[in-house]
């Protein structure tokens, strides 16, 4: 069996990083983000990155750290609301930002991973998002064409991996992770736990091992953005 299990995040990324590369990252806000791989990318010093990710973390956590170090040239995201440095770099022109509607970004990753170079959606018709995109009418309604994304590298965070790289996610920490996993030319997963072969139910695998070239177990801080509670 090919060895996919790496001892730490730095070695899991060894040989995969280069300036100007594209990276697809899983996560929604700070939920389900590949914390350890992001830190390893920061430490590597690789620059001029184009990053496909729904958000860019907050200022000092998540992908926000790569914005602070200015390793990111361009973000493709749907939301920047919780990240002051992101908004500042964008408004000042230091950072290129391509806004994608959240569902369009998710579908673009899925399409790229599925060998679909383009698809049509109603989302964004008549808005800034439609500018420069091909329009086409189907059954009397107008749609725009969006392109599939294939990234040089995908980094994802899962809950468990078996020794073959079959991944499980937990609750809403799933989000973009399975989609990013499919659209990377190489996909590296960080997980909370590595479990023996045969201990996962084959009916319930979220990301089949074919999409995972390397994985590494990591420590996860799992920071919470909005701690909202009700009285017990």
């Amino acid at each position, binding site marked *: 069996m090919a060895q996919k299990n790496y001892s730490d995040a730095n070695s899991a990324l060894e040989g995969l990083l280069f300036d100007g590369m594209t990276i697809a990252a899983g996560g*929604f*806000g*700070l*939920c*389900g983000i590949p914390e350890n791989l992001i830190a390893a990318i920061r430490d590597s010093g690789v620059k001029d990155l184009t990053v496909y990710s*729904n958000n860019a973390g907050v200022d000092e956590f998540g992908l926000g750290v790569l914005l602070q170090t200015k390793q990111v040239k361009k973000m493709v*995201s*749907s*939301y*920047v*609301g*919780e990240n002051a440095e992101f*908004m500042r770099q*964008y*408004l000042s022109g230091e950072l290129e930002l391509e*806004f994608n*509607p*959240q*569902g*369009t*970004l*998710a*579908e673009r*990753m*899925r399409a790229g991973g599925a060998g679909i170079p383009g698809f049509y*959606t*109603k*989302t*964004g*018709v*008549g*808005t*800034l*998002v439609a500018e420069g995109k091909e329009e086409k009418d189907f059954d009397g309604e107008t749609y725009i064409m969006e392109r599939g994304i294939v990234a040089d590298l995908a980094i994802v965070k899962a*809950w468990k991996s078996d020794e073959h790289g079959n991944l499980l*996610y*937990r*609750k*809403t*920490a*799933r*989000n*973009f*992770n*399975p*989609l990013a996993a499919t659209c990377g030319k190489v996909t590296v997963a960080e997980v909370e736990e590595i479990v023996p072969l045969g201990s996962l139910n084959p009916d319930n695998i*979220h990301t089949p091992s074919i999409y995972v070239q390397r994985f590494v177990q990591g420590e996860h801080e*799992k*920071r*919470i*953005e*909005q*701690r*909202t*509670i*009700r*009285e*017990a």
Partner: protein
Amino acid sequence: MPWDRNQMAARAAQELEDGTYVNLGIGIPTLVSNYIPEGVDVTLQSENGMLGMGPFPTEDEIDADLINAGKQTITELDRTSYFNSADSFAMIRGGHIALSILGAMEVSETGDLANWMIPGRLVKGMGGAMDLVAGVKRVVIIMDHTNKAGETKLLKACTLPLTGKAVVDRVISNLGVFDIAEGGLKVVELADGVTMDEVREKTDATLVE
């Protein structure tokens, strides 16, 4: 007297139909879940990948892996299912959600919606809003009738970049309920004590009876 946030949310809750699947936006729309009428069973979708969203957790129940689209900690129910973001927006884009209740910066009399950016000043991003308004069967907006500067948010045409064109079905403002209709905004009801004169004064959009 104009409705407050909770009264607007309570009025919006009357839009909910039994047995349907509903998406509530961030802000006032989130409050709607506090006012779901007795006997009405709705399943709430959270576009980050969940059907069957439960209430906020107690301190003990907090789980960093369980948040809603507003990044708030939440809980699950006995009907809950989780899925990835592409599957979540497949539901939304594919028209499987009956109703979405969202906030807005501006709404036009033809149902155009602007709620994601003010050029040069404020950029949050559209998040899932463009997908929701394009895909969900019925779109209801909750917002104050005027902005902080006292200017109307119900316009003949939006001035801000759009979230969607001709997508809004109904607006619930602090002054009343308004439908996008042939020729303009149709007044469906007014908050107690609010007069048509006040509505006319605070509305730029064409009002039709």
